[in-house]
């Protein structure tokens, strides 16, 4: 069996300040000061197959954006390894292969350099990396603009002349210019108006078909994730708590947190005043609860959940969940 396109093994990322001089000295003398660190990503396993869309869902601060930043090299992982086509990403030196992983950003207002024309934004990287000769740049840019549903005459304009949806298309064209295999999409439609969201979602689906792309699609919007994804992984405070094929997850959610998320999703068909609410706040990632991170909010929490971290276990074919309830209660 060939390795998956992308695989994360026990990947962690801590953010924090190293100890100051005084505390380091004190530690030398026998004190036990711990550096304050946030486990933004805490030992996660993930994989994305060829031409597959993996939806990564979670609330703000759960570490889902950090996952994308680790994969595209904006931050190195603190622990664990990321494999691209079976090869450790950190050991790949071929820039062309590294460029096969591209990112689509959330904020279309900030993700394009306001001082460059569309042709410069899209065409800069391929020319710098020697993919295109400088003289063929404008023609190639026009082709890409058409491919993402824009007018070829837009090449000479500046980002501020476009609407949010159009800017997001330009961002997609910039990524496509490097002929990527995998797109990391970090909340790519969250900043768009509802009426333009659908246009961009449709573009993503169409490009996946045409170019055999794979996506890591990060979103808090369960409706869009359900629409686009082949598999879905749910994150809570730095850990994956459940992952499954999309229909399996939405129809047979196993983890209490996933169930709470699905119940909280705003829906058109909801009757007046019907809000299923999971109790409690999301804990601070600086001081996460021991054991299962979700136990303070979980209606089914048991003594075991407060001390022991539940591991991901298969509850149905391809369906993993990290919950002690699946062991039949207290062990």
């Amino acid at each position, binding site marked *: 069996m060939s390795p998956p396109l992308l695989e994360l093994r026990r990947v962690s990322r801590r953010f924090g300040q190293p100890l100051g001089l005084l505390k380091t000295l004190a530690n030398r003398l026998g004190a036990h000061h711990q550096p304050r660190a946030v486990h933004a990503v805490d030992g996660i396993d993930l994989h994305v197959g060829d031409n597959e869309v993996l939806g990564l869902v979670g609330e703000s601060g759960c570490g889902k954006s950090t996952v994308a930043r680790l994969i595209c*090299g904006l931050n190195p992982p603190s622990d664990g390894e990321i494999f691209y086509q079976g090869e450790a990403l950190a050991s790949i030196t071929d820039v062309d292969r*590294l460029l096969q992983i*591209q990112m689509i*950003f959330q904020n279309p207002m900030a993700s394009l350099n306001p001082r460059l024309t569309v042709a410069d934004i899209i065409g800069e990287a391929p020319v710098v990396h020697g993919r295109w000769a400088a003289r063929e740049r404008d023609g190639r840019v026009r082709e890409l603009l058409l491919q993402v549903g824009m007018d070829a005459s837009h090449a000479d304009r500046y980002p501020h002349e476009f609407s949010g949806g159009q800017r997001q298309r330009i*961002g997609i064209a910039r990524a496509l210019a490097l002929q990527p295999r995998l797109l990391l999409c970090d909340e790519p439609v969250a900043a768009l108006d509802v009426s333009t969201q659908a246009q961009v979602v449709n573009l993503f689906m169409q490009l996946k078909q045409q170019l055999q792309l794979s996506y890591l699609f990060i979103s808090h919007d369960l409706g869009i994730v359900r*629409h686009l994804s082949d598999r879905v992984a749910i994150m809570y405070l730095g850990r994956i708590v459940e992952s499954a094929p999309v229909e399996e997850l939405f129809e047979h959610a196993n983890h209490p947190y996933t169930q709470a998320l699905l119940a909280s999703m*705003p829906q*058109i068909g909801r009757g007046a005043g019907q*809000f299923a609410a999971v109790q409690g706040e*999301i804990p601070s990632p600086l001081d996460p609860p021991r054991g299962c991170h979700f136990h303070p909010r979980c209606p089914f929490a048991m003594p075991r959940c407060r001390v022991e971290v539940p591991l991901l276990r298969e509850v149905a074919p391809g369906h993993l969940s990290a919950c002690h309830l699946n062991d039949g209660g207290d062990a």
Partner: protein
Amino acid sequence: MSRLRQFAASRVAVVGAIVLLALSVAALLASWLAPQNPFDLATLNLHDSRLPPGSRGVDGQWYALGTDLLARDVLSAILYGLRISVLVGLSSGVIAFALGTAVGLFAAYKGGRIDNLLMRVVDLQLSFPAILVALILLAVLGKGLDKIILALVVVQWALFARTARATALSEVGKEYIEAARTLRLGTARVLFRHLLPNCLPPLTVIATVQVANAISLEATLSFLGIGMPVTEPSLGLLIANGFQFLLSGDYWISVYPGVALVLLIGSLNLVGDQLRVMFNPRLQGASVMPDDTPLQLTDPVPAVTAHAPPVLQVNQLSTQFFTARGVVHSVNGLSLHVARGEILGLVGESGSGKSVTGRSIMRMIAAPGRIVDGRVLFNGVDVLGLDEEAMRQLRGNRIAMVFQDPMMTLNPVLRIDHQMIETIQAHRTCSAAKARARALTMLRKVGIPAPEERLLCYPHQLSGGMRQRVAIAIALLNEPELIIADEPTTALDVTIQSQILAEFHSLAKATGTAVIWVTHDLSVVAGLADRIAVLYRGRIVEAGPTAAVLRAPLHPYTRGLLDSMPTRNSRGQPLRQIPGAAPPPTAADNGCAFRPRCAFASAACAAMPELAPLSALTAEHAVRCFHPLVQVSS
């Protein structure tokens, strides 16, 4: 071109620019313009020493500004002195600018230890007074043009480095820089092609001021006799030369070079000041704001029949923003009503005017915005006609507002209990103990656990969801009759949003408070609102009971919004999309604003349809469309 016009908006700056230009040209052409070469000893005639302005020398030369001790023509000396001053100021400024900016950008981009190290060097440098550093350096290096330029570069670079770093730090976090990094464009390219151009505006402003500073610093040093050598006098040295004769009445030797120095530095500062205004949009006023003429109010439209008399009735409200790019019609003849205990969902996309509507009702429209027409009747009283004191009594008391960002309500430096007690006591006489008890009740009502402890917290100690709950509790403190909630759950996570929606719904029903819930998300108001009004480009295009609007929308735009949302069965199929984007808000158009995107648009749509029910049977459900989507009954 528009930049030039922007600059010319300030007459003082234009005068400054002209003076600066004239002085620079005079300095540049000194060898041709000056009647005499003041450094050529052969042409000097010592008999002409200390002649007053306007006198003739022994050889018949005309000394317009007089002569100094060495019989040099003061005018010529000033022109040559200007040249040295401008040269020193410009070259040291440019070199310091380039050096400091490069260091600052590099530090900001690399971060970590490199940043730390470089910035400590900058701190060290800036902790010594500039004049002291320059004095010491010149004492070591000696006199001369190159040496004073070097000293001034050393004095100035750190300021550029610090400013460049601060500007770059805010840019480095932006996604376009991250994008450049994921495209692996290389450090030099990211720094100079992507980062630098976006950091330049504030730096150029500093540069103009710094050139002025460098010129005055050089003048000071030369005045003290350690700057330029006597053979190449700059303006500072010229002033020093005449200083001893000031008391004996030979003022011109010092005063005219002094005037030249003041003009040069003053004009530079005027130009720099206007550049600062240009690059900071917040300092710019509106260009076409009309005078504060009284409102031309239209007669009230008869109230739409509602079961209970409305708490709020808005008639033909229009709010416009007078920007430099033209008049933005944010709210355009909008009418709505809310009854006691009723929740109205005001739905629209960005730029639809939904937030401006909420703020207009509260009369919280700041310049360049203005409510130009309409009535806002709160319990029958026109809010737009009230004086500021009566309005203050209404705000936060009878009408409360909840913002998307709770920090719009909360004061970051005050404890929660102080803020809540203050809100109560601002509108009624009440003991602190009683007010505190009420605050506690309110916190409990909005679902805050351990409210006694939360009362003692500062806002920053609470999570985003908690802050929003506190803001809602504050809004509810004085039992308002109307709450305007502007996207209060948009920034929150879905599980928290669900909690707050549930609490808001039961509170409104229990207390009889009327609510206008402003949102971009139809699905949020689906379970919350009794009625929905859909906004497009400042006008309500459809309004009616929630179930009717969501189940059988009449306007193609509402239909489009509903269709573009994915459903459980839409997987694998393309979503139905509304083509195009909303027109820019400045576009003047008398027809239906949605028609460029509408599949049903016809020639009739070039006129504006009325907002009206389809038939008397469905009087509650109104639509503004010539081609409403009538359901085929089967």
